[in-house]
């Protein structure tokens, strides 16, 4: 059985900082957040999505209709995250994590999947899709590859 290899790619042309970064997880057809974004990257929709990523990176609190976690959902979904564009009904789903052991405050959003939906109600099917990828060993490996643990100083 072939081994699934995934990779993180920083969302291009977004103002990532040392504190916060947004990335696509790529390497499987179900991981369609990146590929769907690519299709609209140069359109007003793509610019609005990038703008919302910039807002999150700049520590704007969760904002209805723009992006948010799922604080009121079951504990299992608390790390899930979504960027929203109401105009085009587009959602980019993913999860947040703190992959840098040397700097636990550093936060990364890993975008996994995309959906087109009009309703505001949380769709657990989409969140379960995110969780499946979040827990996948290939995802963990991709994050570790992008943020390797600091090598221990010699002699310790």
């Amino acid at each position: 059985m072939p081994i699934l290899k995934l990779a993180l790619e920083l969302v291009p042309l977004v103002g990532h900082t040392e504190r916060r970064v947004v990335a696509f997880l790529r390497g499987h057809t179900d991981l369609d957040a990146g590929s769907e974004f690519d299709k609209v990257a140069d359109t007003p929709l793509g610019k609005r999505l990038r703008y919302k990523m910039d807002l999150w990176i700049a520590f704007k609190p969760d904002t209805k209709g723009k992006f948010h976690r799922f604080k009121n959902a079951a504990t299992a979904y608390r790390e899930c995250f979504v960027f929203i564009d109401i105009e085009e009904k587009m959602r980019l789903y993913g999860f947040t994590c703190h992959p840098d052991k040397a700097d636990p405050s550093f936060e990364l959003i890993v975008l996994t999947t995309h959906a087109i939906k009009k309703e505001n109600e949380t769709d657990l099917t989409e969140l379960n899709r995110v969780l499946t990828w979040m827990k996948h060993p290939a995802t963990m490996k991709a994050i570790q590859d992008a943020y390797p643990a600091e090598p221990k100083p010699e002699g310790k």
Partner: protein
Amino acid sequence: MKHWTQANTADFAYSISLGFFTQLEDRLEQSPMKRRDYAEKLGVTAGRISQILNNPPDNPQLESLVQYARALGMKVAVVAYDDGDPENDKGPIFSEVFNASWERIGKPRDLISVTGAITPHAPYHETQQDFYRPETIVAPIQLPYMEPKAPIECIVAVAQVPITGQTGYAPIN
């Protein structure tokens, strides 16, 4: 290219518009005013308001921005700034950052409340240093008002007296 607003001035202008309408949307969210009432004030439909907030115009007229803000009891400033990023590699600073900074230091209406000195009389380095130290900002506001009897240069000196914990202000000779 490192940031999407680097491509051209149109993209930079679009990001300003997105930031502006984000501020209005936040205000509307916190306000008791309904979208319907806001729309009525502007003479448009509630649907049009939703459309504008969800998909802001890419290059709105300045006068339109003022209309949208005034209908929410807000004002508009156009601010030019130097963030040490001349090539715009990092993208713009959000208008919310400027607004939050201004609110945090007590919404000053003049420069003396911010710098503690009348800018044209103060050397550049003195107006810039300690810009955000609370005592530097608050002290001039807390000083009791006195009818100026001395030349204006003396008033500048009052504002520059360092705050050491005691109340009142030091006399000037």
